[in-house]
């Protein structure tokens, strides 16, 4: 039987950001990561999932790109929607039914809020991102 786990959304986000931060030494890149993590929610609620996925390729700053990749990794893990984190994820999102896409957007918004929260905690000593 499944138990209710209030950490379902927080856990993968916390682990992703911790790992990303631990791998990064460049302070500028850390700043970019933090900025992107806190801005995910406003980007997503204004522009939607498709455009965020497209940003993953378009972003020139590596730090920002890494966070968007982590976001889609977490979304794939939690939703069980295979392959949205891969490079062909955009096609996968295009192929979803309307209900599925809207449901995934709702989940994505909740997840983006988690990124915002954990970024503030995990990158607490990185300035310029809040």
């Amino acid at each position: 039987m499944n138990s209710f786990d209030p950490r379902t959304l927080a856990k993968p986000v916390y682990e992703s950001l911790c790992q990303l931060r631990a791998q990064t030494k460049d302070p500028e890149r850390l700043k970019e990561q933090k900025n992107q993590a806190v801005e995910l929610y406003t980007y997503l609620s204004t522009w939607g999932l498709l455009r965020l996925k497209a940003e993953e390729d378009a972003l020139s700053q590596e730090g920002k790109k890494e966070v968007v990749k982590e976001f889609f990794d977490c979304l794939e893990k939690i939703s069980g929607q295979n392959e949205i984190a891969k490079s062909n994820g955009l096609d996968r999102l295009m192929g979803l039914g309307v209900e599925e896409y809207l449901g995934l957007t709702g989940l994505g918004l909740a997840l983006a809020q988690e990124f915002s929260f954990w970024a503030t905690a995990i990158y607490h000593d990185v300035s310029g991102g809040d």
Partner: protein
Amino acid sequence: MTFQIAYLHLLTPLHTGGTTQEGNLLGIARESHTHLPYIPSSTIRGRLRASVADKDKKFELFGNEIGEGDQLTQGSIWIGDGSLLWIPVPSLSHGVVWISCPLLLKRWLRLTGQNLSVPDPYSTSLKADRPIYLKDAILKEGLRQWSEWKSYTKDPNISRVIVLPDQHCATLIQMSLWRQVKVKLSEHKVVEGGFRYEEAIPPDSLMYFTWGVTAQANGSSRQTAEEFQKLLQSNQIMQIGGQESLGRGFVELSLN
């Protein structure tokens, strides 16, 4: 228990004071069970209370304050939270279209005690055989002509409406909130730090709140209700919520 209703027509963006400030986003108050934006009753109550100059009348309607009298007393009026009824979303085909959903309309019908049916999703005042372009989506099929829509809007300015399924409406509301990006510039006009964002309920939304008379007014409830109605009528335009100095939160009050 009878609920009295007062409507709030938003003239400017309304910032209802966030319960959270995550990252660089100044969010707004949301209902915990639907996550939809709302106006906490204390916001409306506080504003109306502040507009009563006469101390006795103020205490009679809203109760006294700490430090005034021996103990706190209850007022003779209660005020409920402000709920969304219709919210505008951008439309390429119609400029602006107001959306609502069965959940919000059902709530409103229950509280107003009206004997109207809850419209089906995709009921619209627009032509049902022509596509409707909403933000990011084109609705072509399954639209239903809705002739009784005027009984549900309570605002002559709202003429283009569509009822969306609950889950789609919630997502669209989330994505149609008024959002402002803010930056801080240094003395050399260079952006300092990152962007900041503020959310608000967009202007032209229609909201409402319930109010009534408490047990405190036992025996004089009619007089109390009239008194409060007069107070509402004398505050036709009021400013509620946050960011007053930026001109946010102007609402037009009406009783029907």
